[in-house]
């Protein structure tokens, strides 16, 4: 694992610094059936880490590729730092900077390592200037970066001999070698298996937090977005539905779809009476008043508490160790999910009481 002292040194000698990224009203049009971005805008501060989260086909990868310069939009403007790298317009104001000149690094889903070059040659590939000879190696940079990604001594290996997690870390080192101001990651962990994934993710999270470069990454995994992103942009049908900190998204999603996408959710019908939602679970406080008297509210499973009593029957149990998930059937037939961390697990068929214990919840007018 990478120690803090080491990361500090790496940052100093790599001389990385982030630049803001500003995407204004870009449109990417494709052939039918391929995601399209429509008037999409996104602002990322220097050094910030933003996750693009959404189901497949929502356009998140297209947005990332447009920022990289691998996709040419059909309208709008993209700035990296103060420099426009793409601008739609008449001949005079038109602007296009190719991917090779944007000073942007990218880590691909499959790593995209060059199989015929060693790890050291891969990392040196983008280091231009001092070394123009083909496949030459800049040992100083390579060693520094291999230390950063905890792969010292692997410089002479070919990518095919590395594990998936090691390949992704080499890909990260390679992307950082030319000192980019912005680092883009396209589902960087999706090719790894579950156990490895969590480990590589937290290693990369540590590295990214410390090196100060601006990070934009694509994922369809909510955990990944929350762990790595300072802010998360939820995308759907080529638009950003909501952007905010993980906590904002989790507690106050803009709509039911976002709420359900960023975590387990119970969606309950309610009547609004005196600013409280009257539900099958009793009155539940809501965050903001709404129009009308019928509402759908979003209750997280950990905001429900199970106790000895009457009112619900346990239908199904999933035991996870750190907590247990129960599906409870309420008298009116509604099924609610409860996550309970304290008790000895209960069994299917037991009768229990259930009550709301969390902070005020989001409510939306029901149709």
């Amino acid at each position, binding site marked *: 694992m990478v120690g803090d002292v080491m990361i500090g040194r790496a940052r100093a000698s790599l001389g990385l610094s982030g630049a803001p990224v500003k995407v204004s009203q870009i449109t990417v049009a494709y052939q039918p059936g391929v995601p399209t971005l429509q008037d999409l805008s996104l602002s990322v501060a220097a050094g910030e880490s933003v996750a693009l989260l959404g189901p497949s086909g929502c356009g998140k990868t297209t947005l990332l590729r447009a920022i990289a310069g*691998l996709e040419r939009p059909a309208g709008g403007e993209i700035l990296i730092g103060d420099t426009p790298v793409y601008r739609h317009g008449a001949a005079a104001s038109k602007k296009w900077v190719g991917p*090779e000149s944007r000073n942007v690094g990218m880590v691909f889903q499959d790593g*995209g390592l060059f199989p015929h070059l060693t790890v050291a040659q891969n990392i040196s590939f983008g280091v231009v200037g001092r070394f123009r000879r083909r496949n030459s190696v800049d040992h100083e940079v390579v060693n520094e970066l291999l230390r950063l990604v905890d792969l010292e001594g692997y410089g002479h290996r070919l990518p095919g001999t590395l594990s998936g997690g090691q390949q992704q870390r080499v890909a990260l080192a390679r992307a950082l070698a030319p000192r980019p101001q912005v680092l883009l990651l396209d589902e960087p962990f999706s090719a790894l298996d579950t156990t490895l994934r969590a480990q590589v993710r937290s290693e990369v999270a540590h590295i990214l937090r410390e090196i100060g470069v601006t990070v934009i990454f694509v994922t369809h995994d909510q955990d990944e977005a929350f762990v790595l992103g300072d802010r998360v942009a939820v995308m759907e049908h080529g638009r950003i539905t909501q952007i905010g900190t993980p906590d904002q998204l989790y507690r106050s999603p803009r709509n039911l779809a976002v709420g359900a996408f960023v975590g387990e959710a119970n969606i309950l019908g309610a009547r609004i009476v005196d600013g409280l939602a009257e539900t099958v679970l009793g009155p539940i406080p809501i965050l903001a008043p709404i129009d009308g008297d019928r509402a759908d509210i979003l209750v997280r499973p950990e905001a429900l508490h199970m106790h000895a009593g009457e009112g619900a029957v346990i239908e199904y149990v999933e035991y996870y160790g750190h907590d247990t998930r129960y599906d409870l059937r309420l008298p009116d037939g509604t099924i609610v999910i409860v996550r309970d961390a304290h008790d000895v697990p209960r069994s299917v068929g037991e009768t229990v009481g259930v009550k709301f214990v969390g902070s005020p919840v989001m409510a939306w007018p029901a149709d």
Partner: protein
Amino acid sequence: MDGYVATDRVLTATASGPPNSRRVGDDQNLVSRVWIAAIGGVFSLPPLFVLFRAALLGGESLDEVTGALGPLWRTIQLGALVAITTAVLGSVMAWLVVRTDLPGRRIWHTLLSLPIVLPSFIGAAAYAAALAPNGVLYGPLDLVGLAPQGRLAGMGAAWFVLTVFTFPYVFLPVAARLSVLPASLEESARMLGRNGPQAFREAVLPQLRPAIRSGALIVFLYTISDYGAVQLLRFDTLTRKIFSARLADRAAFYVLATMLVILTFVAVAAQRRRVPGTMETPENPGVAQPPIKLSGWRRIAALAVVAATLTAALLAPVASLVVWAWRGVADGRVDYAELIGPLVNTATIGLITAAVVVTVLVPLALSTVRRSDGLAGAASIAVTAGYAAPGVVIALALSFWVRSVPGFFWLYLSFPLLLAGYAIQFGALALGSAEDAVRAVPRSVRESARLLEPDRNRRIALIHFPLMRPGLVSGGGLVLLSVVKELPITLLLAPLGFNTMATRIWAKFEEGYAADAGVFALVLLLVSGVLTWLLVLRAMDS
């Protein structure tokens, strides 16, 4: 196309695999070991016989060597020229149809793989006929004052003809490789500061090199062992000299054949060097790469190049055959009854050969896949070597062998010997498919079958055979397709009076009956075109 099915075998065959632990059902009986040893013996007979007899020549061979140096040099020159040109042409065509937005690129892709159906001797003959006065190309060339003088002949002609009919051996594997390479390879290079052409050269080309090299190797082997085209185009390579030395001069034959065998061996050995850092074909190629946009004049130039290639490789020769055939039909000169005999002969010998070769090689396939040992490895190398060996050498070695070893003379010009010649030349095609067939019944399936059905014969009938059938059929099909187009072995080993389509076409061209030859050739092309489509193109789609 049938060629590169076998290349992998040429390149990856090994003498011995790791020893497998013996599990129930893996026991190998003596009969199959003897059988495999016999296969190895028969398949390595021609080259060993040639080398043995050449060694016996002693001092006598020195004179012959001097005389053979010219043909050897011409063979190497022609092989190298054709291999290099096809490598460039095939790769450029592959890049254009796979990576650019060339209009109609799917259709071009299919059309550009078709020239492989034309045997080189038919292609050469079609060109010779096209450039003769009255030929389809003579008129247009005459109009612009470029009317060809004399007949089409020489190295330039052989180079051109062999290039246009063999470039698909490079085009197909390179196109296949290009279309599965992940987009991230080229895009990573772009993100790391390379422009388009640099990214292609530094990140993509190294991944194509193995496909280009193995394609070019097949072309090289095809060229140095080709007899039909060089004979028609009067270019003295080793094969042509060997063929003409067959009656009079055995010493010359052994020396020339030895040279050709060594040249083949060197080419294969040079290619077999392991290339490190080549990516396994990814199972999921990820994001489809956006095709490169060809703008303005580039688009027109690209279309012109592809159309010109296709014209040279397919349109012009086929048009030439059609025109001659049409003239013959219109004049009523063509005797259709004459078609029946060769057609029946070709189909019969092709089907019998296919069935025999597949049956003979299944035990070897079982052995190489399930319990590879030194014996099976050696036998499989012998089978693979047979595919690389030139047909004239196989045929003449077999024919001299039966005539010089007491007790075997009755095989001379017999069906069994013809069949053996075909088997040695095309066995590798059947072996590769038979191995696929064996792999189609994995251990888990065999073991489940064994637990559920105690009767061995019923297991074979109900489980093993149905799973293996597609592989066996396609192996047989590849052999059939190759036999249908085969020329030199048939010319040298067929019993007297036994004509196939290929030998009839050959005779008609040599005798100058272009119209008859055109009709016969078109029928042959039709048959082998349908076979190719059924066996190879359709199989590649699925």
